[in-house]
């Protein structure tokens, strides 16, 4: 059986490299027009692109609405991780010290409200990031000169020194306080969307912003849905950055439960669903509607974060014991079976830049996980002297979390701990788990990339600076603080400016080192399964924008 | 016999119980003549009400077994179809009940309830039914009948309710009116008015009235003929004057004794019949009054048939050969001489 599974896993890996399982035949001719019907169980809050951090949910929408100076290439597979010029007419000129970036603004691009995109809008956009309290303004954008001041007093934010427009030659120059290898990524994500200068300096909430992309939002009601129509002002300026859309309208319905969405897609009443199809429908759709399924790897790690500051997980032996004991295959079975996830022992997701297969917590330690090792686990538990400790597994109530939690409880009990499960609203789970005051011992989360660089995982989740005791905003949930690793991360960041390849090597080493310390039990990298209607063609999966809404057409 | 409007023969009503059938009525027979007021007296549980309900075929208990004949104008009521019987009820034979509070539907106005009956039996329109109902209420001596028409039962006094009840009963001009203890729930003064009303009705419409009561005073006021019931049987039957003067059955005598004298000094304590009537399932052998009877003798171990004594009938072996000593005594006692 085991052998059989391994065989299947390899077969799957082969399949995955082809990125999509649904077969788009060459003779399918592009069609223009029609309404693309999307559905999700619920909306996800504000649609202010400077505020919404819904990387999976709203960012793919923002990518067809708005443009930054640069963006990720709208393409399938690895090329989608590349940065291409967007509202800038070419890639920026970077000074040799890496502290100034000069962009030439493209001429003649208009917002959906008819105004032209001007240098003033660019400047205003970056000031607005601070004014509206962009979630990363203090982490990403404070590298811009004047940024730290803006973080302190957002209302009066001025980036007069940081973002300098030169009306004469139509360029804008960013002055940074220090070199930043990932600055372009930070401009390429939707936070960098250029909005009109007169956009209100507070959360837009449910009011759509002016668009530069092929579509614009015409209505948004979080209880019901969202409607996107063609932006009449849009003309293609760079096919790679912002291609025109095929469909005329996109209609996103909220409040559609996954099971109902599956049925609706089967009946051709919907074209695409955000949520994963429920586990008990997988068999049915994979036999009946195999051609409508697209499975793609995602840059995410599903992991159980352990609190390294309180018992019993302040004991490395216990953390490693749990790592040895957890059967990743079992977790994958909960998630929907071996086709939908790949076992992972380390922090960086499978295939992510810097990921080098490494699994010390396996029957036969090696590059890949090969099965749990209960003997080692028990031995480590024995050594730790923590047997009998009480553990509460705190998980959110959405998705598979509570079921994985149940499984973890069962493993912890097997190891001789006294484990109980605590399910809380998934809406508060993320902040609740972060606050060290709540003494969460172990929790589970899916950690997604922001952009394709190891720094979106490692420093954000494991640096000493990312741990704020007693705060709801402390993404280093493990409370893991290791000065030597902090120093190494610093070095890796620096290296990225000069020698990207060496930097990646460094990140890989850090990844492995943290994995050895076991602040997490990484379980797997989930694959994204998209179930689409028969008439949806040219499904294009980008690592950044997921299904590119402007690329699909309807038969 | 042709002037008998109602002839009842051998009416027996029994209920199936866990202990076997229990006879509530044991072969009741009597006649009612046109225009006659027949009063049925007896203690509670003697079978008076069951008799009246049996005539109306209103015993709905599925465990009831009814036998005997009830001839109304020659038609045997138990043999009629439910539909025919329904046409008769309220139209030919009407009934008024003891407690006018509970006997009227609380959620309809009394006017509506009277009109309902008129509309059912005569098919008259709403307006005509209303006019007639108001008229009837007026005839019953209800002041301001227009207002009373729109009143709900609980808004009227007991006497008014009973008048309304009677108005309803006579609305279709029935040939027989069965009044089941119509005055029990009322004040003494109102009782007299209601009894006057019943007498007026007989005079005006010529209806026969079967008046069921346990009150000898009521009997002496208006009855033409009296039936005395005890434990499911008629034990004495005779014209009022005869029966009151010369009761043939010791039980009747007992009843008479319990009436306080009309004149003279009231006795300190009214004499009463000792003991209580037997339960229907638990009757003694022979005469069921025997255990309470001060005159009982060996013959009483057998059930006495109705003996004729002039125009009176009595189910007592003492009456087998005409009147007896105790009768005279009782008559003297009654008049207080």
């Amino acid at each position, binding site marked *: 059986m085991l052998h059989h599974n391994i065989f299947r896993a390899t077969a799957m890996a082969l399949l995955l490299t082809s990125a999509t399982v649904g077969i788009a035949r060459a003779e399918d001719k592009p069609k223009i027009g029609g309404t693309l019907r999307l559905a999700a169980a619920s909306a*996800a809050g504000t649609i202010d692109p400077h505020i919404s951090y819904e990387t999976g949910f709203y960012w793919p929408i923002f990518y067809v609405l708005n443009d930054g100076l640069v963006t990720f290439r709208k393409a399938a597979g690895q090329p989608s991780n590349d940065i291409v010029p967007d509202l800038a007419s070419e890639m920026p000129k970077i000074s040799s010290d890496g502290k100034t970036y000069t962009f030439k603004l493209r001429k003649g691009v208009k917002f959906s409200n008819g105004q032209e995109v001007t240098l003033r809008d660019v400047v205003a956009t970056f000031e607005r990031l601070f004014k509206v*309290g962009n*979630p990363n303004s*203090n982490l990403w954008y404070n590298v811009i000169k004047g940024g730290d001041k803006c973080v302190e007093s957002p209302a009066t934010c001025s980036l007069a020194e940081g973002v300098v427009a030169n009306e004469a030659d139509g360029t804008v120059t960013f002055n940074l306080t220090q070199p930043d290898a990932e600055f372009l990524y930070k401009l390429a994500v939707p936070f960098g969307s250029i909005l009109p200068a007169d956009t209100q300096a507070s959360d837009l*909430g449910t009011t759509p912003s002016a668009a530069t992309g092929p579509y614009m939002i015409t209505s948004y*009601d979080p209880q019901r849905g969202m409607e996107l129509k063609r932006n009449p002002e849009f003309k293609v300026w760079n096919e790679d950055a912002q291609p025109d859309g095929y469909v005329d309208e996109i209609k996103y319905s909220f409040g559609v439960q996954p099971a109902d969405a599956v049925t609706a897609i089967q009946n051709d009443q919907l074209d695409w669903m955000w949520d994963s199809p429920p586990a008990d429908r997988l068999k049915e759709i994979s036999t009946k509607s195999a051609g409508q399924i697209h499975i793609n790897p995602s840059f995410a790690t599903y992991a159980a974060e352990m609190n390294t500051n309180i018992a019993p997980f302040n004991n490395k032996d216990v953390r490693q014991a749990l790592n040895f004991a957890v059967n990743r295959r079992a977790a994958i079975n909960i998630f929907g079976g071996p086709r939908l996830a790949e076992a992972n022992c380390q922090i960086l997701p499978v295939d992510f830049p810097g990921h080098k297969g490494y699994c010390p917590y396996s029957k036969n330690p090696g590059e890949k996980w090969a099965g749990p090792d209960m003997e080692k686990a028990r031995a480590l538990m024995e050594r730790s002297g923590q047997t009998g400790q009480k553990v509460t597994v705190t998980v959110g109530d959405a998705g598979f979390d509570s079921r994985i939690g149940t499984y973890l409880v069962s493993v912890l009990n097997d190891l001789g701990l006294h484990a109980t499960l605590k399910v809380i*609203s998934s809406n508060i789970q993320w*902040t609740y788990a972060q606050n060290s005051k709540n003494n969460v011992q172990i929790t589970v989360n899916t950690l997604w990339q922001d952009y394709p660089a190891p720094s979106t995982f490692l420093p954000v989740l494991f640096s000493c600076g990312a741990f704020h005791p007693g705060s709801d905003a402390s993404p280093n949930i493990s409370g893991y603080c290791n000065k030597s690793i902090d120093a190494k991360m610093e070095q890796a960041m620096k290296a990225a400016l000069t020698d990207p390849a060496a930097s990646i090597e460094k990140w890989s080493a850090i990844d492995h080192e943290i994995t050895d310390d076991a602040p997490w039990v990484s379980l797997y990298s989930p694959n994204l399964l998209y179930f689409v209607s028969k008439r949806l063609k040219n499904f294009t999966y980008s690592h950044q924008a997921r299904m590119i809404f402007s690329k699909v057409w309807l038969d | 016999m042709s002037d008998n409007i109602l002839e009842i023969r051998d009416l027996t009503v029994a209920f199936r119980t866990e202990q076997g059938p229990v006879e509530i009525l044991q072969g009741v027979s009597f006649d009612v003549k046109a225009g006659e007021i027949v009063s049925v007296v007896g203690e509670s549980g003697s079978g008076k009400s069951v008799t009246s309900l049996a005539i109306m075929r209103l015993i709905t208990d599925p465990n009831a077994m009814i036998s005997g004949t009830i001839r109304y104008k020659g038609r045997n009521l138990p043999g009629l179809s439910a539909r025919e019987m329904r046409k008769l009820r*309220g139209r030919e034979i009407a009934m008024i009940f003891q407690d006018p509070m509970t006997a009227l539907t609380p959620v309809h106005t009394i006017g509506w309830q009277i009109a309902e009956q008129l509309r059912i039996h005569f098919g008259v329109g709403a307006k005509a039914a209303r006019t007639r109902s108001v008229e009837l209420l007026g005839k019953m001596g209800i002041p301001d009948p227009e207002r009373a028409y729109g009143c*709900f039962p609980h808004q009227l006094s007991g006497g008014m309710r009973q008048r309304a009840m009677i108005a309803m009963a006579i609305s279709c001009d029935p040939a027989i009116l069965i009044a089941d203890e119509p005055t029990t729930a009322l004040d003494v003064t109102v009782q007299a008015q209601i009894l006057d009303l019943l007498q007026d009705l007989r005079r005006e419409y010529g209806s026969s009235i079967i008046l069921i009561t346990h009150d000898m005073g009521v009997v002496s006021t208006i009855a033409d003929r009296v039936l005395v019931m005890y434990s499911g049987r008629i034990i004495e039957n005779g014209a009022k004057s005869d029966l009151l003067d010369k009761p043939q059955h010791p039980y009747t005598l007992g009843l008479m004794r319990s009436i306080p004298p009309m004149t003279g000094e009231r006795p300190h304590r009214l004499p009463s019949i000792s003991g209580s009537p037997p339960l229907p399932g638990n009757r003694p052998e022979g005469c069921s009054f025997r255990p309470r009877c001060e005159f009982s003798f060996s013959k009483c171990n057998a059930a006495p048939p109705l003996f004729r004594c002039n125009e009176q009938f009595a189910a007592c072996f003492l009456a087998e050969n005409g009147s007896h000593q105790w009768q005279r005594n009782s008559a003297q006692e009654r008049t207080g001489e």
Partner: protein
Amino acid sequence: MLLAVVRRAFDMVFVMFGISVIAFLIFFATPGSDPSARIAGRNATPEMLAQVRASFGFDRPLYVQYGRLMQRLFIARDLTSFVNRGQKVVPAVLQATPVTLSLVFGAAVIWLTAGIGLGIVATIFRGTVIDKGLMLLALCGVSMPVFWFGSVMNLITQSRFHDTWLFSWVPGLGYTSFFESPSLWFKTLVVPWFTLSVLFIGLYARVLRASLSENYQEDYVRTARAKGLSESRIMLRHALRTSLITLLSMFGLDFGALVGGGAILTEVVFNLPGIGRLTYQALQNLDLPFIMATVMYSTFFVVLANALVDVAHAWLDPRVRDAR
């Protein structure tokens, strides 16, 4: 009379005030319900949190926060969600109302008709096998968890027998407005209507059966028979007419509670975007403005239903009318 109305109104306001305070306290006492962190976003610093807290007034004393919330809910009517920022609460509640009304109205028609029908039939056949069978069925209806029954109905109509002629007409779950497509509106609601009404059919049939058999013991039914009325007329115009008063008071309270979000489980199971589901989502998201709005809305209907039932009771039952 005026005094009674004023008193009644005062009672209503008092109860609603009490409930709003309880709901407010319940949710402000919850750890993690402080929306600042969610509003501030994923990687917010403690300083940013403090800013958000100040700008939303979360650092003010509780009674000030309560006052502000109420002011924005009832007077300014511009209260917005903490989760879906910018979304106004009042229009969302108003939008959900027709869904709940559609569900409850339809179910009410079914349960009144069937409940009264069953009650009458059982009374007519009282003591027989038919009576016992119907009452057993009614009791089963009362004993079923509504969400479970809904799931089973879904399983039958959406999956197992969906491809048969019997249920092929059943559309997928969700709600279509009556004005969009009356026929689809009807089709989507048939199964939820039935599911929601089953419990009440059982309840009403049992109550009516008990009340009618009680009435049949009453003297006035005998009077009605003595009047020569037909059995059906006695049943409908006399016995039932009297029982309806009890039934209608029950109905008023049930209807009020359901319109006020009591159909929460049915709405969740059938994914109907009504008040119940709105409330449930708000509770799950700990979205305080929505919770307050939906709780106040529900309470309003429950309290109103109570008041209306009192009035209707007096109107229908002349005895009560005169008693006051």
